[in-house]
């Protein structure tokens, strides 16, 4: 088992439960990989080596004595470094307050620990979950091509899962920050329904758009992690109290017979690269062959909805950062400062009209889910750009298809769907109606089993070569 680098939680959970492997062995195996390759990939702000070892030893003792807690028991996971772990520094990927040490765990951290997970470290990220990494921490590298961006803002999460450093990572998503790195790194990323996972203890970017969710190797693994982290939390005023989520909502379907899949055609075609379009059409054929019915959709008003998302996000981010932008501006990278400063020019009316438009579109899209089970788009309009090209871009085009899930609060999943001619991953995005994570993950699972793309690893010898160059 340990020679494989495409490890999944679902496989390992059985082996851990039956004591074929121990949590300590598993952690050591992953730490060996970190020691070997992290110098190239740069996916952690902090590897919590000693804490993780203690937790793995504790998990081993519990499992040995028959106190197995469930599928995350002994599973190494990283947390994006805007998610609190008590008494461990939290940088937010910034130099504004790099010595900040939270005194309590985030709710999501607490839940993972209760499930017996081993918290292996704090994952690298774009500064305050927006734009790009602070130069102090340098870029996380895309495991498929170390000259390319891994996507963000949960950059270290996507790269670490693909590099086989962790079995899952917890990211946050305000406009695509779980799904973009998952897609560009070729792993699964789930942004749950707004209110499904508590944000308590997570530094906000934009309160009404922020979500917390997992990045994993497979849809089944995402379902397992979601079971641990979902649930009502009185410490988060937006937490949803009426319904919990459990793993039984995830179905290992054999096919997609009877499933209706909506495609907003005019929103997609003509605005993506030719390789993304070809891959998307191939993905639709795969879904059809699995028994799904493809239904073309026309959703008007998406351009304005994107503007509303932008107005809400930047206004809220400005409100959060306003004091530091005035008093401690040098703590931010210049590019981020400029992006946040824009937020002060939206008027109160702009913000409120954006929230009204959001509500109008939610009603409209809810009606669409009376006709289809899920809506499918490419995850990104292009493959991972080079770091050099990304740094020259002034507008944010990668999030063209992901913002929709944030402003409407819909569960949204990215699943690997293919590779470009240059060998870069391409993702398929699946949106569901609110609280239908089970349906989204189950459909994603069928697609994943049809394509088996997750079984293809990146070429690790390139990481060695990159290390030698540096």
């Amino acid at each position, binding site marked *: 088992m340990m020679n494989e680098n495409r490890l999944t939680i679902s496989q390992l959970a059985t082996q851990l439960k039956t004591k074929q492997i121990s949590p300590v062995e598993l952690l050591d195996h992953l730490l060996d990989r970190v020691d070997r390759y992290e110098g190239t990939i740069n996916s952690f702000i902090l590897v919590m080596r000693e804490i993780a070892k203690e937790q793995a030893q504790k998990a081993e003792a519990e499992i040995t004595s028959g106190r197995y807690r469930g599928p995350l028991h002994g599973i190494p996971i990283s947390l994006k470094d805007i998610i609190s772990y008590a008494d461990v520094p939290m940088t937010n990927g910034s130099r504004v307050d790099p010595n900040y040490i939270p005194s309590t765990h985030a709710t999501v951290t607490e839940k993972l620990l209760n499930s017996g997970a081993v918290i292996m470290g704090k994952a690298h990220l774009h500064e305050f979950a927006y734009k790009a990494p602070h130069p102090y921490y340098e870029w996380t590298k895309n495991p498929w091509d170390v000259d390319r961006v891994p996507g963000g803002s949960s950059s270290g999460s996507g790269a670490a899962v693909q590099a086989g450093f962790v079995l899952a990572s917890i990211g946050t998503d305000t406009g695509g920050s779980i799904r973009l790195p998952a897609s560009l790194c070729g792993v699964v990323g789930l942004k749950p329904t707004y209110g499904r996972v508590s944000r308590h203890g997570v530094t906000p970017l934009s309160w009404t758009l922020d979500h917390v969710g997992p990045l994993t190797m497979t849809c089944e693994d995402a379902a397992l992690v979601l079971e641990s982290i979902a649930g009502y939390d009185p410490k988060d005023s937006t937490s949803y109290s009426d319904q919990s989520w459990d793993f039984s909502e995830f179905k290992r379907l054999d096919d997609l017979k009877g499933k209706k899949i909506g495609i907003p055609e005019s929103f997609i075609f003509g605005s993506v690269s030719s390789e993304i379009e070809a891959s998307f059409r191939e993905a639709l054929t795969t879904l059809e062959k699995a028994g799904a019915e493809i239904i073309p959709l026309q959703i008007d008003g998406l351009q304005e909805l994107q503007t509303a998302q932008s107005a809400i996000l930047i206004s809220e981010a400005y409100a959060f950062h306003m004091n530091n932008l*005035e008093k401690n501006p040098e703590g931010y990278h210049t590019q981020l400062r400029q992006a946040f400063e824009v937020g002060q020019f939206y008027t109160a009316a702009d913000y409120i009209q*954006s929230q*009204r*438009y959001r509500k109008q579109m939610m009603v409209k899209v809810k009606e669409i889910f009376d006709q289809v089970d899920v809506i499918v788009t490419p995850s990104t309009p292009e493959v991972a750009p080079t770091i050099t090209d990304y740094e020259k871009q002034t507008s944010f085009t990668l999030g063209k298809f992901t913002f929709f899930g944030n402003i409407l609060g819909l569960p949204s999943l990215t699943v690997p769907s293919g590779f470009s001619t240059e060998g870069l991953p391409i993702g398929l995005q699946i949106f569901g109606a609110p609280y239908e994570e089970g349906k989204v993950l189950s459909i994603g699972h069928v697609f994943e089993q049809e394509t088996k793309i997750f079984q293809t690893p990146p070429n690790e010898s390139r990481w060695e070569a990159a290390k030698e160059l540096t």
Partner: protein
Amino acid sequence: MKKILTLMSVELNGRTLNPCLEEAISVYEKEYLPAVQQLQKVSGEFSLSLEPAPIYIPEK
């Protein structure tokens, strides 16, 4: 417009002008304002009963 936005920042928002902020004003004027004006046009057609959702939780 740049003058208005500068006054808005300094006089209304209490900010200290600096090169980064001045650049942000230009970016807002060129890249964001046209999109906001489009949204303002659409919002002119909202029904009076349409309420915003300050704490937004999607309905089942």
